[in-house]
């Protein structure tokens, strides 16, 4: 190791000689705080610029144009004015928030309960853990189409079962007041596995000494859950909330597969409003919509993330 300083790149000896012997040229390629010379960053920087920076700025630009793909006309902020006057937008905005909050809350509660169950000494634990995760792996569109069939108000399995026990099942996806919540329920079923896995990891990492000590002190099971599991699984809760909220706010594929925003506009979310504008050929307008969606998600998630993490530090 020490005998071949010239061929090893990681050994310390060449480092002091470089600034001393070639300080002029080395100073250009390397700054004090940087770990690598600049050229080392170049491939990643080029990729990053081409794939992320340019499209982002291009989208900010095209949001200001009436864009027909083959040509465009600069129209300033008209697209944003038009987008905010979009009749479906208010419904879409409200629905987006309802959908994000409902699915996120349900995933937190159900995920935690399932994780507590699946970290207990239950028979077939490994199998049960994978079963709850399976829906996460299935294609969203496939899940959507399957549940659309199951939720058919007349021939669907759900209402046939309900009918067999004498209950008149609702139009899950055709009743304007139910459609969005039905889709949210399917989204929870599909996504709760991921929340559960995160919670399992969080709960398993809690040292068992705490539980043993609490038991010796006479704490009941509710008390142990309330005072040990819940606070110590907090990092998992933060992760689940952030992930499922971002997922819920930009959710599109499941809603599109199940209701296409219908009946009418009643289950439209911002993403489906934007998609329909894109379909209609309003490319500039839908790009402006995406910029708005980006800002909305950022405006909700960023403060929430900061707030949740601050509480964690205080703990």
């Amino acid at each position, binding site marked *: 190791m020490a005998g071949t300083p010239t061929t090893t790149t990681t050994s310390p000896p060449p480092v002091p000689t470089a600034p001393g012997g070639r300080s002029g040229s080395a100073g250009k390629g390397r700054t004090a705080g940087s770990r690598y010379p600049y050229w080392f960053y170049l491939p990643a920087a080029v990729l990053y610029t081409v794939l992320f920076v340019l499209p982002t700025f291009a989208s900010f630009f095209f949001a200001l144009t*009436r864009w*027909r*793909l*083959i*040509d465009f*006309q600069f129209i300033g902020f008209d697209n944003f004015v*038009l987008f905010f*006057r979009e*009749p*479906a937008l208010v419904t879409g905005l409200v629905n987006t928030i309802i959908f994000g909050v409902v699915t996120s809350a349900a995933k937190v509660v159900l995920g935690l309960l399932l994780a507590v169950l699946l970290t207990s000494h239950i028979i077939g634990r490994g199998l049960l853990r994978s079963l709850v995760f399976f829906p996460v792996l299935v294609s969203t569109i496939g899940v959507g189409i399957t549940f659309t069939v199951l939720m*058919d*108000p*007349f021939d669907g399995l759900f209402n046939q079962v309900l009918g067999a026990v004498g209950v008149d099942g609702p*139009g899950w*996806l*055709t*009743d*304007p007041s139910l459609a969005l919540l039905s889709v949210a329920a399917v989204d929870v079923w599909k996504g709760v596995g991921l929340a559960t896995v995160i919670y399992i990891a969080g709960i398993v990492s809690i040292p068992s000494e705490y539980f043993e000590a609490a038991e010796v002190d006479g704490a009941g099971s509710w008390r142990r859950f309330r005072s040990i599991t819940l606070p110590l699984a907090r990092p998992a809760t933060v992760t689940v909330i952030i992930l499922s909220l971002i997922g819920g706010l930009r959710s599109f594929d499941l809603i599109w597969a199940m209701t*296409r*925003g*219908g*009946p*009418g*506009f*009643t289950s439209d979310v911002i993403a489906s409003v934007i998609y*329909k*504008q*894109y*379909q*209609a*050929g*309003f490319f500039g*307008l839908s790009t402006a919509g995406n910029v708005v969606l980006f800002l909305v998600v950022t405006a909700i998630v960023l403060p929430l993330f900061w707030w949740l993490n601050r509480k964690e530090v205080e703990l």
Partner: protein
Amino acid sequence: MAARTATGRPRIGVLLAAAAVLASTACSAGSLGSSGGTEDGTVTLTFQFGNEPPASLIGQALADDFMAANPDIRIETETRPGGTEGDNIVKTRLATGDMTDLFAYNSGSLFQAINPQQQLAPLTDEPWVGSLEEQFRNSVTAGNGVYGAPFGSSFAGGVLYNRNVYQQLGLQVPTTWEQFMANNASIEAAGIDPVIQTYGTTWTSQLFVLADYHNLTTEVPTFAEDYTANKAKYATTPAAVQGFQHLQDVHDAGYLNEDFASATFEDGLRQVAAGEGAHFPMLTVTVATMVENSPNAAQDVGFFALPGNDAAENGITAWLAAGVYVPTTTAEDSAKFEAAKRFLAFIASPAGCESATRVAPPAGPYPVEGCTLPADVPQAVKDVQPYYDQGASSPALEFVSPVKGPSLQQITVEVGSGIRSAADAAALYDQDVEKQAQQLGLPGW
């Protein structure tokens, strides 16, 4: 998903064709003169059309029959989904220069929305252009250029009705809205659904509004012109609100089939054929599908125009045939363009009409001189002809004005489901078309 698999193919086709052209000019120089094509003289064209019958059947039949008569041209067909998803594919592929060599697409306002003057090759000087029916020719014209050959027949919008139900209840075909509602009352009393709606297939919800255009234009003849110039609005023209109002009326009266919110368009066709429902506002282009699924419908289902206020002005709203177009990218290759023109000449000829008739009974007259309808068409199509003969027809608004909003189908679903009132819906639709008009850069918007 279908689109993704489809997009790869034409490029490879273009490459192969280009390679073949290069090879042929190198090997057999002089023997073929300046004409393009491969070594054995064949040219391959790609041709895209909708994936639902009758379009899917007609597209394939045209390609097959043309190839049988012209062995030197090979046509590879591909299909795309209908509705707005299809619009999206057509627009994107045209803009990226990735479109098939020929494609079938709507005439009228949707044709205007693909910027024909920039993206399509004009066919104005082709000999068959003179034999096109005038309304159709106008609907594939942009600026001074004609861009399309007719794909299939024209068709009508109105009401498909079950003739057995009418016979049993002793009803007459209505010519006014009052008569129609009176018939509905008797039909409901007999325990049959008076009006079928199928919001599982959202576009079907638009018929009460779109097929009412004949009634609108007979009452307000300047509507299309003023509407295009942003001078007339749906919400402020009583005759225009009427279509929305009728839809609301049949819902409020409880005349709809129980499963209207989830039923699909094919369910609706089955219900009217079986007499479970009496009326289904529809386009006659669907008759072929209906007869295929329920053969008895050929005799049992008839057709009448959507009734308006005045019996004397009763007439149909006519939809013009779709067009077959050639993107400018095809015209850059002269061998291909020549082959494409020969295919178009076949499509716009009596032989082309026969090809279409062979696989799908026509839903109305063909817009080509010399094309005739077979004698054994279904009853619903027979019922359309008298309206044309009496001149009691107007082309639908989408063929006389480029302004058509993309959200009409969602709006009419809301009206027909009792979520939104007719007046509110008309105002909302006015707002919806504004975006389309601005995107097209129409003056006055």
